[in-house]
């Protein structure tokens, strides 16, 4: 399909100007630019995928490298949302000629932009698309698919910690007889996790998703109970222990703070609980999927974020040590933890 090739030149020039305006949080300027590009005949799909999407990626990287604040990131995302709206309005008269696709973010997933972009690209390819929003609860999704059956569910997940929820939603869609395509950074770099969780299709990005669906939606995979991953016994046990592990981690941090003559409380305490929550959450998901790469990818990313902020990894390694000693009777978990330490070391 010619559509799957990005339009060079025009879109590339727009992309630079657009990013500059978003970086300055100049919403009217950014939207004007998109309006102008559309009038100039720049392909709407190219605007979505070669201008708005890469800008959002750069904003995310900006946060990672500590150049952007969370507030900046939110404001930039809001501009991205509005810009998508401008592109959508441009093609508003189009009548969908193909089947109905429901696009949703996994429960707990608040990064809505990738899913919206996908939805709009599919719309441009003639699909009748409905966007259910960010963090869609599984029960709501089930009822929705029951009320208005769809030909396909497109599920977006940016953070692997929501993959357990993703599994529930894929199962729910299957019960409604709706095949599923999944995508987003949460599913990792290939289709391993998607297949494991029972999705019919996985796409690395919106263009590839549209290409995969060029010949129509996939058939529902046969219901095979044996193929449903059964999380290891250790998964259930570590989930139960999560509260305890976080407490142990907090006590450890308290001691470290005390040694420096400081008191761990207020925002610093919340921060510590949140960080420990993330670490244990990634650990449990990697156990659920029996895929240590989920945990090591997270630690590699964490290391990058810490480096950018000049925080030594020593404290993180110490926490990993505490987890190892707490989970000594969980051999699989220890393997995952040790692989994690190797990445940090």
């Amino acid at each position, binding site marked *: 399909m010619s559509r799957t090739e990005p339009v060079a030149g025009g879109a590339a020039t727009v992309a630079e100007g657009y990013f500059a305006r978003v970086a300055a949080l100049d919403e009217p300027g950014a939207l004007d630019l998109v309006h102008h590009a559309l009038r100039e005949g720049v392909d709407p799909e190219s605007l979505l995928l070669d201008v708005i999407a890469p800008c959002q990626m750069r904003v995310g990287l900006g946060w990672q490298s500590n150049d952007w604040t969370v507030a900046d990131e939110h404001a930039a995302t809001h501009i991205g949302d509005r810009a998508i709206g401008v592109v959508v309005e441009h093609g508003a008269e189009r009548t969908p000629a193909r089947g109905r696709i429901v696009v949703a973010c996994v429960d*707990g997933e608040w990064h809505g932009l990738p899913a919206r972009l996908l939805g709009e690209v599919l719309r441009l390819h003639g699909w009748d698309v409905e966007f259910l929003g960010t963090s869609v609860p599984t029960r709501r999704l089930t*009822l929705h698919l029951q009320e208005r059956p769809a030909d396909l569910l497109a599920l977006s997940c940016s953070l692997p910690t929501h993959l357990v929820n993703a599994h529930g939603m894929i199962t729910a869609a299957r019960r409604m007889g709706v095949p599923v395509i999944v995508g987003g950074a949460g599913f990792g770099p290939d289709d391993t996790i998607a297949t494991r969780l029972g999705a019919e299709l996985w796409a690395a990005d919106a263009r590839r998703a549209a290409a995969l669906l060029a010949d129509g939606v996939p058939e529902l995979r046969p219901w095979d109970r044996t193929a449903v991953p059964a999380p290891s016994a250790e998964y259930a046990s570590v989930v139960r222990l999560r509260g305890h592990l976080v*407490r142990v981690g907090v006590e450890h941090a308290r001691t470290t703070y005390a040694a420096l003559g400081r008191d761990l409380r207020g925002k610093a305490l919340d921060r510590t609980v949140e960080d420990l929550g993330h670490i244990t*959450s990634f650990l449990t998901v990697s156990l659920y999927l029996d895929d240590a790469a989920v945990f090591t990818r997270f630690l590699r990313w964490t290391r990058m974020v810490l480096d950018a902020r000049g925080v030594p990894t020593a404290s993180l390694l110490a926490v990993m040590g505490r987890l190892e000693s707490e989970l000594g009777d969980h051999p699989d978990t220890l393997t995952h933890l040790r692989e994690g330490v190797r990445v940090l070391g």
Partner: protein
Amino acid sequence: MFAPSVSGPEPLDEESRGRPRTPRSTSVHTVEALRSAARRLGGLLNPARLIEQIVRLPVPEVADLCVYFDLEAGGGPVPWVHAHEGRDGRRGVLVGSGAWDRDVVADATWLDDIANGAAESVEPTPGDPVEAFVARPGGAFRAVAVRGLSDVAGALVFHRADGGFDDTEVDALVDYAERVGTALASAHLYQYQARAASTLKAALVPEPLPDIPHAVLGAAFRSAFEAERIGGDFYEVHEVPGGFDFSFGDVSGKGDEAAVLTGRIRQSLEALRLVEHDPLRLMEHLNLLLLRTDPEKFSTMVLGRVTPLPAGGLRVRAAGGGHPPPLVVGVDGRVREEYIGGIFVGAIEDAPFRDREFDLAPGETLVVYSDGVTEARNPLSGGQMVGEERVHGVLAECAGMPAPVVCERLVQYVDDWLGGEEHDDITVLAVQAPAAGPDVTP
């Protein structure tokens, strides 16, 4: 005569007949294939999708054609869904649908036998309208009854171009129809419940916020009873001459009962607004009205009227009924509380309500939230609640963000805090005075 339907059955052509297909040499194979198909029907809860799978799964292992006739509609045409092997060089199984008119049905005596419960398994006689599903008469047809909860729900017809069905196979078809009936009954029950829930939801889900000149509005919520998106919190914004009204409340209790009260309050407010505009007087009237209907149930509430100021900014006149104080996020990120006071609405006869007037400078955001926000508990820190201090902290980082983003950010923070735990309704409404400057797009 047979009336061609929405997407009429395409007869099997020579090519597909000639193509080699999965051998089904023995009845053992048929029995096994039908058992496996029946197992795969298990989890499906959507009736339309389920019927597609019901006809799709036996093809081609058991038969080259499978049709489901839906007898539940009663009276009118009989809808059918059929699956057959691909033709014109297309591989796989194709599914289509249509309907038989009454006069066609009249010619199919086997269908009548099945509908009346007179027969469980019938062989349609030559010349039957069912032959229109295949290119030329011949081969063997077999129809079996599908029983729902009590009555016959439909009929399944199988066709084999080469050879017939032996007794063991007919028994297996009847068994399959039995499983199909059970699966369909549970799917229909589930659909019935889902419809009931969505009807309730349709009446109570907050309306989308209107576009109001001179103000930026935002709202976000996550209800305790997720699927139905209904519960004890409510909010509304209405444009009125010279400005707009807003209401925000949190009724006592949870689930359906709370939802019913929410609906009553919203309707009452709508009616009272016809005769009263002052938030405080409105609240007093509402209090009496709710006391009359059910003194056991009450609600916390903030009612406000907002008018634009000539020099930019907004003037808010708000009445309070025991609700957490609204917060105002300043342009510099400072967060101030606009305490109103008052007690629950609908609890006591001479309830003292309060009202206040305050201004929002350009760029300032008024945030009203339900106690589900502050009382959300973090399972990782021994059930600690979010509390007001953290809400202030989050909002302080939201200075300069558009109102919808502020609301989403706060609800997102609370959701992360909960880590997937049970919670009360979490609802946030924001009213923002557009920022000053040449860039303003009101």
